């Protein structure tokens, strides 16, 4: 155990330094970036005053990449190279994606994951998302006038490990330091200020462009506890557009349209849907490539009739989520609406009917997630103020398990367990002299491996030969605060240790991410080695600063004999800092970590004791 710095609420580690941090809502249809400015969360706008960046990326044949409205405008012209709603492909295989057959892309599958063939070569969804994030990062840095300390990126609460890892990879690729992956419903609750004395149970109903999420949150004394979460990763506003689109084809008697016409009609469908939110009637006019003009009128009632099943489909996960939380609709004190699709009056009515109360809609449903993420980013970056003393206790949305004999799943971590969490499970060999064991990690609620998502496969080798059943293989799962899993396995029975650590990564392997960063398309001209050195130096200074502060505050917890090795390790690290050798600095950091183990444990212990007796560290300091 090394040194832990304990920041009291209301006290950042460097009080006068405001760190630049942003919240990013990486949405299916639109993405936003927000920050806290003068204590107020605001969405950052582009040069023409728009805060929503359409999540559309176009790979042009001249090697340029367009992102946002420009790319969107080229949709009909260049559908194959213009990627919309890429979030639906994040960490997914082709069979997981709905309506693949109607999409104009040239899909291929690599390592079980979706990739897209574009005029600029094969692109993974992670890379496409990174293009969107790069634009938002640039917008933020220009607007805030400096390099970002970090970002909070939101994900649907129902995202599995593959989708979360893909999102984090995209952020890394875009050069962002991810402070936390935050669940979208939790972000929305923060934006609504539900922390301020809002005790009770809240439901967050989030119908976005491509995903539906429902979460039940319990708020009490500044603690946000996600009690349960559920959803449908393939249900969103896009599906409402799709129903309208099909209706248009049917009404206008269009045979399967060309890709360009389909795009054009899909855009008209979206406009009509938006118009019907405020109007009783909408007209649809579209000129097809053939020169033919489509002209239709749709009433709100017709639209409601053709999409009511979609609205009803959202209530299934709502019921499941309440059941998981052991609650009924009347236990819910408030319902927060998130996502542009919740503007549709019939969605609001269905939610009001189900919960027996009008939902909360006073914040812009498109911005609420980004605003909440910005508030949390500001706190995580170390700019916490006294009235922001809340704690998020999030859960893992889907169970994690291992494949056992006969293709069955042995659950290791149950869904809705509070994170971070670690759990170990012991297995044994089933053949005499068996020296290797295949470990297959899956996520999902079903009993059969084939019905769950496969996250990672690896082999534990070097098990000493023993009779069947004598080896004890312990497989350990660790889920971090971002909801990301790492797995390790070791053989305990014989005292011989074999160990493998697997961090599942999707769409891109860690090596691929590293290679892309090395290519330097984002850090042009910057040498990878120089970057590595700088990172180690920054880390070393952080550790040194933290150690100094801790010694100044709690040095009394150590005897002189205990203090000496710490001082020596600090001096050694100071000297190494000047050496300019990244590997040596790393060794120095680790060495300091080892000698501060005991001190860190005592400090943490003291802080816990103080917390339990209800006193702040400042109050007991003499």
């Amino acid at each position, binding site marked *: 155990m090394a040194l832990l710095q304990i920041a009291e609420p209301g006290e950042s580690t460097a009080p006068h330094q405001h760190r630049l941090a942003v919240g990013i809502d990486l949405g299916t249809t639109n993405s936003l970036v927000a920050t806290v400015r003068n204590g107020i969360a605001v969405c950052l706008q582009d040069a023409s005053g728009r805060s929503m960046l359409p999540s559309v990326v176009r790979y042009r044949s001249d090697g340029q990449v367009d992102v946002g409205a420009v790319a969107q405008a080229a949709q009909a012209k260049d559908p194959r190279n213009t990627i919309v709603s890429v979030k639906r492909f994040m960490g997914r295989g082709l069979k997981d994606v709905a309506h693949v057959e109607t999409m104009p892309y040239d899909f291929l599958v690599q390592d079980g994951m979706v990739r897209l063939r574009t005029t600029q070569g094969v692109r993974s969804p992670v890379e496409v998302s990174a293009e969107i994030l790069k634009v938002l990062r640039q917008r933020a840095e220009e607007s805030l006038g400096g390099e970002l300390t970090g970002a909070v990126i939101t994900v649907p609460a129902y995202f599995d490990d593959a989708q979360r890892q893909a999102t984090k990879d995209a952020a890394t690729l875009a050069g962002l330091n991810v402070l936390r992956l935050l669940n979208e419903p939790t972000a929305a609750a923060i934006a609504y200020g539900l922390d301020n004395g809002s005790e009770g149970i809240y439901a967050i109903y989030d119908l976005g462009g491509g995903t539906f999420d429902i979460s039940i949150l319990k708020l009490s*004394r500044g603690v946000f506890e996600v009690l349960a979460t559920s959803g449908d990763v393939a249900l969103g506003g896009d599906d409402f557009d799709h129903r309208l689109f099909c209706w248009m084809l049917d009404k206008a008697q269009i045979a399967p349209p060309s890709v360009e016409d389909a795009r054009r009609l899909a855009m008209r469908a979206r406009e009509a849907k938006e118009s019907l939110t405020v109007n009783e009637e909408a007209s649809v006019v579209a000129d097809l490539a053939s020169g033919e003009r489509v002209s239709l009128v749709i009433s709100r009632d017709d639209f409601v009739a053709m999409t009511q099943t979609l609205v009803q489909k959202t209530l299934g996960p709502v019921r499941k989520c309440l059941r998981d939380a052991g609650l009924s609709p009347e236990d819910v004190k408030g319902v927060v609406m998130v996502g542009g699709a919740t503007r549709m009056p019939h969605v609001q009515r269905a939610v009001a009917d189900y919960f027996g109360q009008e939902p909360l809609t006073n914040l812009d449903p498109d911005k609420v997630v980004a605003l909440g993420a910005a508030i949390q980013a500001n706190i995580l970056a170390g700019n916490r103020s006294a009235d922001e003393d809340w704690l998020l206790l999030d859960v893992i949305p889907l169970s994690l398990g291992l494949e056992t004999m006969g293709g069955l799943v042995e659950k290791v971590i149950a869904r809705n367990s509070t994170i*971070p969490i670690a759990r170990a499970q012991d297995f044994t060999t089933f053949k005499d002299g068996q020296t290797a064991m295949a470990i297959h990690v899956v996520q999902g609620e079903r009993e059969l491996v084939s019905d769950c998502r496969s996250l990672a496969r690896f082999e534990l080798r070097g098990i000493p030969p023993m009779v069947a059943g004598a080896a004890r293989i312990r497989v350990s799962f660790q889920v971090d605060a971002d909801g990301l899993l790492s797995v390790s396995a070791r053989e305990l029975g014989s005292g011989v240790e074999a160990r493998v650590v697997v961090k599942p990564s999707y769409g891109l392997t860690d090596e691929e991410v590293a290679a892309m960063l090395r290519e330097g398309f984002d850090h042009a001209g910057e040498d990878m080695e120089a970057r590595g050195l700088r990172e180690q130096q920054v880390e070393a200074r*952080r550790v040194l600063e933290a150690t100094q502060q801790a010694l100044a505050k709690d040095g009394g917890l150590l005897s002189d004999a205990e203090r000496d090795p710490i001082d020596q390790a600090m001096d050694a690290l100071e000297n190494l800092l000047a050496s300019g050798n990244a590997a040596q600095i790393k060794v120095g950091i680790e060495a300091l970590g080892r000698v501060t183990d005991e001190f860190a444990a005592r400090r943490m212990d003291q802080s816990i004791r103080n917390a*339990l007796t209800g006193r702040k560290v400042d109050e007991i300091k003499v």
Partner: protein
Amino acid sequence: MAVDLRKNHYELFGLPVSFRIDGAALDKAYRDVQAQVHPDRFAHLSDLEKRLSMQWATQVNEAYRVLRSPLSRACYLLELQGIDPALESNTAMSPEFLMDQMAWREAVADARDSAQVAELEALQRRIRGEGKGLEADLEDALDGRHALDDARDLVRRMMFLTKLQHDIDNALEALES
């Protein structure tokens, strides 16, 4: 590296080591302690600190999970005494309890196979009642008489009831959909 908090779960939360527990005090202690160690407090600090914070927060979550449920709490108390309640086989159980087990299992299987939701729910209520009774017995065995062998027996009964409870939940869920 495992986190060595050098304390058992009760000491971590500043609570007395007993089967009977003050739920409100446990909740409050959990939140107070988690507020100190949670990774959100360390997100802007060094990688080393972030990793350590995750280990502490993991441990705190685990301690809370164990102490919150009567079954895992009882198991934990036995483990603190060096007894693993799951280790020995059922052959050591009384024939009477084994007969009970079979009767319960059959009742659940029958109700499930004939899709009798009301019957399953009635069984669930009865099992809950049994569970409450076992809790009282455990409190007596662990806190009162310090009769560890009896406690181990009771824990195994409770494990069986919990498993049965899950089977009924699964059966009900399957019938609902």
